[in-house]
Structure formats: C-alpha cells, structure tokens
C-alpha cells in the first residue's frame, strides 16, 4: 500500500496540458478581438474557459487517474453552482414581465 500504487503522471501529459492551456489562452484573447455577435461572444469565451478548466482538472489535478468519487465531488459543486445561478436568473431576468405567463 505504498507509493507504487499512486499514479505518477507522465511528463508528456503535464507538458502537453500546459501547452494546451497556453494555446487556449491565446485563443481566448484572440477571440475577444474578433467581432462575434452577442451572446455567442460570451459563449465562446466560456467554452474556451471550460476547455482550460477541464485540462487543469483532468491532468494537473489528476482526475483521469484518480478515484471517481473525487471527480463526482467536483461535478457536484458545478451542478449546485448552476442550480444556484439558474434559479436566481429565473427571478432576475423575468421581473419586468410580471404577467406574461398568464396571458
């Protein structure tokens, strides 16, 4: 039950992930100078950010090789974050149309 059971992440994955992150960062900055109509500009930026986040979580944090429960913990936190924002927006986005649902 000692060290040899812990997965040692191969160097090429770590360096590859770092390179991927840099490329995605350049793409993110680049995309911000391109005229993309709303709301796709935000969606593009967020898609790129999620791509980067996945790289960090999967490779740097080792989730690919780790116990599934840890991945589940992270996904759970995201689920609840999206629930929080989603349900809050149900209020804040629909306030000026108070009666639309009845008509």
């Amino acid at each position, binding site marked *: *039950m*000692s*060290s040899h*059971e*812990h997965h*040692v*992440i191969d*160097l090429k994955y*770590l*360096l590859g*992930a*770092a390179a991927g*992150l*840099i490329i995605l*960062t350049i793409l*993110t*900055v680049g*995309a*911000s100078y391109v*005229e*993309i109509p*709303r709301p796709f*500009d935000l969606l593009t*930026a*967020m898609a*790129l*950010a999620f791509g*980067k*986040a996945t790289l*960090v*979580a999967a*490779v*740097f*944090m080792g989730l690919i090789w*780790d*116990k599934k*429960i*840890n991945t589940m*913990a*992270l996904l*759970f*936190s*995201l689920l*609840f*974050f999206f629930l*929080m*924002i989603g349900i*809050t*927006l149900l209020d*804040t*986005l629909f306030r000026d149309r108070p009666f639309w649902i009845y008509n």
Partner: protein
Amino acid sequence: MANINATPGESHLAHHFVDSEQQFDSSKLGMWIFLVTEVLFFGGLFVAYIVYRSWNPELFYMSAKELSTIMGAINTVVLIGSSLTIALAVRAAQLNQQANISRYLIATILLACVFLVIKYFEYTSKFAVGILPGELYTYTGIDHPGAPIFFSIYYMMTGLHGIHVIIGIGLMVYLLVKTRQGSYNAAYFTPVEITALYWHLVDLIWIFLFPLLYLIE
C-alpha cells in the same frame, strides 16, 4: 486492510487509520470536498456578477475596457505555469527526487509572487485614477451610474482570489521548509498533493475570472 503490520511510510500513519492508503485517500477526498466549498464560495460572487451583467450589459462592456487585457493575459500564463510547476513538484515527490521537490516549489512560489506583483501594479494604476470599490469610487471616465458596482464586484472577486494566492504562498513556503527537512518522499507526500490540488483550484478560478472581467466585448 491486507496489512495491519507496518509498511515503510507508516510513521506518518495516525492511530485511527488502518493503513496509509486509507489515510491518503481520506486526505485527498477531504481536500476535494473542501474545494467543493471553495467553488460555491466563489460561486456566490459569480452569481452576483452574472445577475448584474444581465441587467447592465453596457456597463460591463464599458468598464471592462478600463482593465488591462495584457496584464490579465500575462497573469493567466503565470498561473498556468505555476500550476505546471506544482504538478511537477508532486511528481518529484512521487519519484523521491528530493532536490526537485524544492526546486519546483520555489518556482511555484516565485510565479505566485509575480502574479501578485502584476496584480499590485494593476490595482495601484486603478487607485490612481479613483477606481476604488464601493463608495470610495471617484472615477468619472465611465458614463454609467452603476460603474461603482462593476468595480466592487471586480475588487471582491480578484481580491478574494488574491487572498487565496497569498494563502497558497504561505502553504508552499511551509512545504518548502518541510521538504528541506526531508519530510516528504515517495511513501508520504500527502501535504504536497493536497496543496497542489488547492493551487490548481486557484488557477481554475482565475481561468474563469480572466475572460469574464477583462475580455468583455
């Protein structure tokens, strides 16, 4: 369960654990659950951000122009680099390369300091023109009554993130001292591993802060 008798790393085994694998897994799961709380902690600020952005898209567009994309981008790269170096530190620990653990930890600490220095210049340049949080805000360059709120959110988010960076530096300095004392090796490197997880999360949050705050078109 299979071996109740001592294994090489056993000196770090607390009395209530059966073996070091159970101890390592527990620490790691504990850290992940802590990261869950961190996600929701920052989540609250992201909710405030999203709600106000949905109410005042123009304000966010105008205000983001005041922030320096270059500095933000450099800081993103710096943090990505520090994530890589701390991952390498964990790897060095797993491979029992004592000198490399120290080297990578120092690199990570330095990168974290670079991040803070850049942040310092960013903040002071904002302070200089009167862009301060809340009621201290005096800048007149943005023609929108809600401008103080954008910068309040900006300072709350980056400030809280900055505090996490400072805590991270503290943790890594502690790791460095312990590493010099030879505390970590292939059999026992739990503190390095969980600190690395924490540091990656700091990086993760910045990955979202950067486009949301600096890159609004």
